[in-house]
């Protein structure tokens, strides 16, 4: 989840009405922000990526204003008609087909505003932009640019001075040698034609989605901005643009439109939308009996516009609220504006009787039997290491099931047996008093022509100097006789983990359902155990439940 750092002094100013820090901090959770860290001067909050308008303190101030009633209703975005135009060359279609832009004039940038804008840009890249793949944003010093611009493609030998560099580099070099080039270059795929924004005298403005030109770098002295967004999805580009436009307007800039034409591109539409909300739906879902006017004022506190029309409410939703899909989202806006703390919990009536799943009931019983026989329950992971599951236990790994790109070394394959984990557990407890008796129940995995099968097994181990095949067989017999009234027999077999001549298949109802035996000295050695171990593992699925 993305994090925004808020300076409390600045936030207090942005609110426009004297509000104590305590009041601000206690309000934050009620607009959906989680407090991560708090110091004397600043506070870091986590926001959910579906609310990109909360990526700056401007957006958060707007949310607090609403909930505290300082300013309610939809913040209006005023876009004046500008004389700036961007032409799009059809060659971009194959690589990054869309561009959209706005102009922000006569504003003032200080260090903190620049920091907020850059942090917003990063969050938008990662969220709406899907790590720049879907959309990427360039913010430029307008005064360095000669309009009209052209969005076109060039070859990889095209050269310009990229941002933070002092010398010219070719696009090939940028892709190979810069951090952003290596990180985002793959977005452009195998195309030889690279997207580029050039101005009317041929200066490179940006090489999207990788890097801007050094020419248009913004600073504290910058007064006017060009914001361009290139994208593979026009709608997503306009989502991101609406967030940036609102922030810049809040930061004191005047916003001007741009004319965009060519190859199915057009000027951005950042207009608000309307949605109809039924009063009954709100009250039905929230379990309240709110009047139309309370609902309207609650929506306005959530910074939406609303007016009544008969038994319905017409809501106006600003373009940047991309999280609002339908009326249920508006119901939540009412709840937030009304105040979650004002909702009194109720208990719904019910005639249903609860019950555990039959698998749970069976496993609970087996567990009780094992405990009664002196075995303690262990809990291991089902995502395990090959070393324990196959190598140290000498098991055949040819049907091993792996997961892709695990971040944790010890968790790379799905277990097909519980016993290896239990032997590993013994090996991590060699300093504890013996005898050690452990059991575990759980899911094991197998693969039948690419389909994953899941079965539930029961396994146990017993380790101490006098453990023998006959003791562990006594346990096995008792588990099935006392547990489920089944008689089991054992039949000599040969299984790698166990000692030759002291291993048997477990037969119940004429079917082999598991294996029992003394663990082989070699395996004992592999796990650095210095004590004999015996155990068994039985498939319960198909035996005591399906």
């Amino acid at each position, binding site marked *: 989840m993305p994090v925004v750092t808020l300076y409390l002094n600045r936030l207090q100013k942005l609110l426009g009405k004297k509000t104590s820090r305590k009041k601000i901090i206690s309000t934050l*959770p009620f*607009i959906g922000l989680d407090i991560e860290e708090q110091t004397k001067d600043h506070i870091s909050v986590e926001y*959910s*990526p*579906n609310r990109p308008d909360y990526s700056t303190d401007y957006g958060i101030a707007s949310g607090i204003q609403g909930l505290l009633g300082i300013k309610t209703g939809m913040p209006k975005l005023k876009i004046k008609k500008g004389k700036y135009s961007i032409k799009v060359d059809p060659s971009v279609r194959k690589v990054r087909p869309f561009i959209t832009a706005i102009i922000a004039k006569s504003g003032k940038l200080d260090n903190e505003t620049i920091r907020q804008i850059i942090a917003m840009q990063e969050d938008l890249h990662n969220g709406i932009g*899907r790590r720049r793949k879907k959309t990427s944003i360039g913010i430029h010093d307008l005064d360095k640019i000669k309009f009209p611009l052209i969005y076109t493609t060039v070859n990889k030998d095209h050269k310009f001075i990229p941002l933070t560099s002092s010398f010219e580099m070719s696009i090939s070099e940028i892709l190979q040698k810069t951090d952003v080039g290596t990180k985002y270059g793959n977005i452009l795929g195998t195309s030889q034609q690279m997207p580029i924004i050039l101005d009317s005298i041929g200066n490179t403005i940006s090489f999207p989605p990788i890097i801007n030109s050094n020419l248009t770098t913004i600073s504290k002295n910058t007064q006017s901005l060009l914001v361009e967004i290139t994208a593979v*999805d026009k709608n997503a580009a306009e989502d991101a643009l609406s967030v940036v436009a609102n922030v810049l307007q809040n930061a004191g800039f005047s916003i001007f439109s741009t004319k965009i034409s060519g190859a199915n591109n057009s000027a951005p539409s950042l207009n608000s939308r309307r949605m109809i909300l039924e009063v009954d739906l709100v009250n*039905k*879902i929230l*379990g*309240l009996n709110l009047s139309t006017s309370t609902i309207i004022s609650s929506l306005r506190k959530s910074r939406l516009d609303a007016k009544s029309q008969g038994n319905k409410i017409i809501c106006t939703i600003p373009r940047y609220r991309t999280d609002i899909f*339908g009326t*249920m989202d508006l*119901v*939540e806006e009412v*709840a937030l504006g009304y105040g*979650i*703390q004002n*909702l*009194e*919990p*109720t*208990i*719904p009536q*019910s005639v*249903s009787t*609860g019950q555990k*799943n039959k698998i*749970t009931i069976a496993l*609970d019983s087996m567990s009780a039997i*094992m*405990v009664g*026989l*002196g*075995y*303690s*329950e*262990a*809990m*291991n992971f*089902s*995502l395990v290491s090959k070393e324990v599951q196959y190598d140290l236990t000498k098991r055949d790994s040819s049907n091993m*099931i792996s*997961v*892709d*790109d695990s*971040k*944790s070394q010890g968790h790379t394959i*799905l277990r097909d047996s519980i016993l290896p984990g239990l032997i590993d557990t013994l090996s991590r*407890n060699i300093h*504890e008093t013996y005898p*050690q*008796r*452990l059991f575990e129940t759980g*899911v094991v995995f197998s*693969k039948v022509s*690419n*389909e*994953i099968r*899941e079965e539930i097994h029961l396994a146990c181990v017993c380790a101490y100097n006098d453990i023998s095949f006959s003791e562990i067989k006594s346990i096995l017999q008792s588990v099935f006789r006392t547990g489920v009234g089944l008689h089991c027999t054992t039949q000599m077999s040969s299984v790698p983990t166990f000692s030759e001549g002291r291993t048997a298949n477990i037969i119940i109802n004429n079917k082999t359902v598991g294996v029992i035996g003394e663990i082989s000295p070699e395996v004992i050695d592999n796990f650095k155990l210095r004590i004999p171990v015996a155990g068994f593992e039985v498939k319960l699925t198909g035996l005591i439940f399906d």
Partner: protein
Amino acid sequence: MSKVLHPIEHKIIRTLKETPNITHDEIAKNAELTIDQVRRGVEWLKYKNLVEVHESEVFFASLGQNGKEAVEKGLPERRLVNYLVKHKVCTFDDARTAVLENEFNAAISNAKQNGWIEITKGQTSNIITLKDNIKHSPEEELLTILANRTPVSDIKNKSAFESLKKRPDFIRLDSIKTTVITLTKQGLDTQITHSTGALLAIDVEAPAPEVFAARSHPLQDVINEVREIFVSLGFAEIYGNLAQPSFWNFDALFTPQDHPAREMQDTFYIKNASTNKIATHNQIAKVSESHKKGWHYNWKLDEAKRMVLRTHTTCVTIRHLADNNPDEARIFSVGRVFRNEKVSYKHLVEFNQVEGVVVGKNVTLRDLMGLQREFYYKMGLKKVKFWPTFFPYTEPSLQSMVYNEKLGKWVELFGMGIFRPEVTKPLGIKNPVLAWGGGIERIAMLKFALSDVRELYNNNLGWLRSVPKCP
């Protein structure tokens, strides 16, 4: 402290009453016990304050090389006197031949001190005259005594001893440490009864050897507790696979196929696994349509077929609801879920999640909050509050916070919400669905006061054998 005495203790006390202040070895000999039995018994008695153990060091004196020679040949002063016995009177120069050069001064001064000789001035040299009645000197007497090793404390003539000590290598000193056991006043008062074949009393207050009760895993106990609470609230448990097609884990829950949560860094995809039948044709068609309409992208069936280790139990819930389509229901599921994260003190790749769902025509957000409060109340958590939050498949969504008395702060527990119409509508679920859930390890950590979640899966027998079943 136990008043019962072991037979060994009896024997020791009886022996000490007969012969006080003796060593372990002496007790062993007198009481006919082994030295180990005596050592153990003395420890017990000491603990019961019936005996005291004193450690002491005894110094011994014996003769050195020169001392031994002096016993044979006599001390220098004696040899001088023996010479004089033959010659009666002699000069200093004559006397020098009688004893060694380096012993001469000592011989003269000691003989004079013993009153054996008289010295007068001659013409050229001093004259030594032997007196009458020559007795043995105290040094000579001591020398004969010290021919046998003798405790220093037994030596009566201390000045003779000091004098001999000053002479080089006449006396050797050594010491022996001894432990002496003495009865305390209480010990002296202890009555020794002679057992007469009746059952011997045993020390019922002594610590007994440890045995460990077999038990279910503490985390399993918490899972069972959560289960019981759901059942008591009228919920039926459902069960589902850990490996699921992406369709049920993501698509059916309106998570777009390019959503960051679906990327490999958060989700475990199973290698070379797929499934032919992920859902009904109608379910697939409707979900696909909902994605195209809501997220404006080209939904792909192949992506929905990829097998994942479920990232939440919601996939089990939604599949159950889609397949059974109940108008009213209270169901829950609990089990393992997976996240591709780096294991740390607060993250596991695999943990347990519980999820409850209520379907009903008239269920509300306030009901969801009420059920939540009821659930926590049964868990022993009395203070609950709610904050808004975001989940991709619920709207409205809330986060519950509970006050932890031990930590003295609010902690985040279960998340909850009402399934979005974008989730329920395509799957034909008509009534609102209240859902809530969260990780169980978090509750277990609070319960067992753990700061590292990995401890729950270490299966450390030291912990499993000591953690109380009902803390």
